[in-house]
């Protein structure tokens, strides 16, 4: 590390803080930036600054947005009676790609995880209940991750929301399309059987 000039060391150290970036990757990125022309690095700096200055959380659904309420919440074409609950903002993109779903979203910003010390107070649950109490919601689709923590979160939320009256559904878990039954494990297979449908 002592081999590099101090500003380079500093850049490598900052890059190393990013998720999934080890020392070697940080070094490679730092030298890429060093070689890049000024216009390229200026665009990167601007993009980072803009994200930090203009992106906020939607006060209704907690999605990341530059206008509040966000475009999903105010879109006249979307069904105001259905809310799909996800863990992270980037999960919305996966549902939008289907072009099937036309309801609203709610982002929890995490999942319940007792072992990591993440409890109900650490998630954005309060404004979900407020949305339900407003009375127009017919269905809640729980689309937290298909793992133990996502399941615990879905269980917790369904118990909490049941008295408020909406239909509560959970996305199906099962065999991924394009895979082979031979390689599915018993839990996945069990879920796939339990979630089978009439043909």
């Amino acid at each position, binding site marked *: 590390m002592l081999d590099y000039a101090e500003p380079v060391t500093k850049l490598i150290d900052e890059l190393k803080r990013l998720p*999934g970036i*080890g020392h070697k990757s940080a070094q490679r990125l730092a030298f890429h930036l060093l070689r890049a022309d000024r216009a390229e690095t200026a665009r990167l700096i601007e993009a980072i600054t803009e994200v930090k200055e203009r992106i906020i959380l939607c006060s209704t659904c907690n999605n990341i947005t530059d206008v509040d309420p966000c475009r999903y919440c105010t879109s006249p074409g979307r069904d105001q009676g259905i809310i799909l609950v996800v863990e992270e903002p980037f999960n919305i993109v996966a549902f939008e790609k289907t072009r099937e779903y036309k309801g609203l979203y709610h982002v929890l910003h995490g999942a*319940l*995880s*007792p*072992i*990591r*010390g993440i*409890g*109900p107070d650490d998630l954005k649950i309060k404004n979900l209940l407020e949305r339900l109490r407003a009375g127009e919601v017919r269905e809640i689709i729980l689309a937290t991750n298909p*793992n*133990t*923590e996502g*399941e*615990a*979160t879905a*269980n*917790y939320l369904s*118990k909490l929301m049941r008295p408020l009256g909406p239909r509560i559904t959970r996305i199906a878990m099962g065999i*991924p399309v394009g*895979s082979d039954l031979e*390689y*599915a*494990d*018993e*839990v*996945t297979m*069990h879920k796939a059987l339990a979630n089978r449908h009439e043909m």
Partner: protein
Amino acid sequence: MPLQTTQAYVLRTYTLAEADKICVFLTRDCGKVRGVAHGARKMKSRFGSALEPLTEVALTYFFKEGRELVSVSTCDITRSSFYIASRSYETASALAYMAELLSEFLPDNEPNERLYRLVMAALAAIEATPEADKLWQLLRYFETWLLRLTGYFPDLAQCAACQTGIEKNVSAFLTVEGSPRCLHCSSGRGAVVDTEMRHVISEIFRAHPHEFATQLIPAKRLQQIGEMNYQIIRHALERDLRSRALLKQLALGQL
């Protein structure tokens, strides 16, 4: 690199870089082991749901002498706890507490066959006992036995200061370190383990978890035993368990 094959429970996982996970296992043959599961975060991962907490797996891994992390080769489900954990948020939290306790409390690489069998028996009893209030009873069973099998549970029948016996029909007293004292040596100070608590503890050590789950034990008594156990755990770890505060709120119906 040598290859090891053993039965194991997955205790917890941490994400590592883009695609990998660090896993903590309780293995039957080698005790607690930490390893890397390469590619475990990918959607089409060969590990599937095998790395969910408290899944029992047939594990093979490569290890190198003197290196802390082993490299997970195969990890196939023997018995999943996913169904039990998805029963309710309470059950999921109880299992998380068990996993955290094992993961934090046990030393690395020290096999403990009886402890491994305790985990098997406790999970089987929880699976067979869907009543929510029995969940806390079984957790106390698990905790108390875990402390005993790791050598932390005090011998309440004998005062550690004067070495005289403490009869079953009198209270024992625990110092901050969890060391037992008779009434005389403690002058009545320290945590009281009264005769009713002592009776429940002796039942825990006598009965199989399935049988213990059928006994009617007042919630208050179980809570006292939970407090006593946690004192010992906390003193040994010198810090709190993350899942403990949430679990306590849950048990008191505050969540």
